[in-house]
């Protein structure tokens, strides 16, 4: 199994969720994060004091799927999350060795709903 973590722009979440649904993924976990990358943040002014806000709000979407689904999922996310502007985000893929469904104790493939 693979864990796919996509860091995307927050307002793309709805689109990504729909795209994932379309390729058969229904389980996912979302975290609010802040990112720093090429998209450099911005300066904010408070009463004339200039502050660098280095971190931009991002949303991390985490999906665990079986190996053969990875390409579809990655493609779906890339399609749905792309706006073509800097800061669109990144996708990272790693290996998961075990998955367990807490409710039933089912393991691995059966655990991924």
């Amino acid at each position, binding site marked *: 199994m693979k864990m796919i973590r996509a860091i995307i722009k927050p307002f793309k979440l709805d689109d990504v969720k729909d795209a994932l649904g379309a390729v058969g993924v229904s389980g996912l976990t979302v975290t609010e994060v802040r990112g720093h990358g090429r998209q450099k943040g911005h300066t*904010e*002014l*408070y*009463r*004339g*004091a200039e*502050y*660098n*806000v280095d971190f931009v709000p991002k949303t991390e979407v985490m999906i665990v799927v079986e190996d053969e689904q990875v390409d579809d999922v990655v493609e779906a996310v890339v399609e749905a999350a792309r706006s073509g502007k800097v800061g669109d985000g990144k996708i990272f893929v790693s290996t998961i060795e075990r998955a367990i469904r807490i409710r039933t104790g089912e393991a691995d493939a059966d655990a991924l709903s």
Partner: protein
Amino acid sequence: MKHIISKIGLLLPAALLAPSMAFAEDTLNSGDTAWMLTATALVLLMTLPGLALFYGGMVRKKNVLSVAMQTLSIAALMSVLWIVCGYSLAFSEGNAFIGDLSKAFFAGVGVGSMSGTIPETLFATFQMTFAIITPVLIIGAFVERMKFSAVLLFSAVWLLAVYAPICHWVWGGGFLGDAGALDFAGGTVVHINAGVAGLVCALVLGKRIGYPKEAMLPHNLTYTLIGTALLWVGWFGFNAGSELAADGTAGMAMLVTQVAAAMAVLSWTFAEWIVYKKPSLLGACSGAIAGLVAITPASGFVGPIGALAIGLSAGLVCFWAVSALKRKLGYDDSLDAFGVHGVGGIVGALLTAVFASAGLGGAGLAEGMTMGSQLMVQIEAIGATVVYCAAVTFVLLKIIDLLLGLRVEHDQEREGLDITQHGEQVYDK
């Protein structure tokens, strides 16, 4: 409040003759009393929760509760001290510099005691709300780093050693009032006083760790907005209440208060829009307060045109003070107690001399006063306040530093005052 005080002076003997526990029905005006009951509630609203939110929204999350706690407990402490001897020191006869202790513990002030057309208890409570807000204004300069015990001790001593005498000078029969200084609702007594004390605090305590390198963004600007709005609304009680009556001057005071605040919102906002390309809510809120501060000394003396001019100036000058001046001088007046209240108060005190003149739509200067001579009196009042306040505040801080220490420890400041001083956190799930 100046000319009111003399009214009271005239009425006082009558009030004293009245048996203290019976209604002095002949002099009490229920309309004036109704308005002053309301005005007192409005001024308290400025501090609780007004200032607590205005300031609390601008600090970092880890210090929100400490600001609220300082506000609430200073308010409580000042109230009790006002009863004990603060009111007496400010408003009993005494000499030109300070009152005496004849009204300590409100001796002789009963249900039937009158102060002009309103009960003296009410006058004293109204004045109490001024004695509450002034020390709370100062905390803006030292939030996020001062020990809670030191905050309380400082506020208590400052009330008696700085606020009470200056209040007496201007409103209690002291030398500045006698000299003809115009301060309708507290430009000098409250705002310059608090602003200067704040500046001294900022200098003596030093900068917050990380200032100005780290981003110290306001934690929640909605709180600041609510605070601004409640300050604004409450300020109607502050200014129009300082007439101590529900009459034409009170009506005009309310109108000019609104106009100056509005104009200062616009001038600060547009200045920011031009200079920094974006008009911000924090700027608009700051402008509102700057305008309200500046109209305070003028509110019973000027007309709408004067108010427009005062608001315009206050917005621009304070904007410059908190952005350019502060950066240049490099002190960390965290929430701009000096930049808004000190500077705005001075702008207002000076312009009062100008726009009080009948030719510019004002109520007219006292007999024998010219705009120039009035300006000199105003400068004298500002000067006396600045020098006395700065000197005594400095000494008090140094003594308290020896006794208790002023600043929390390095790690406590890093972790935040909420947890380390009060054992609480502002949010939980």
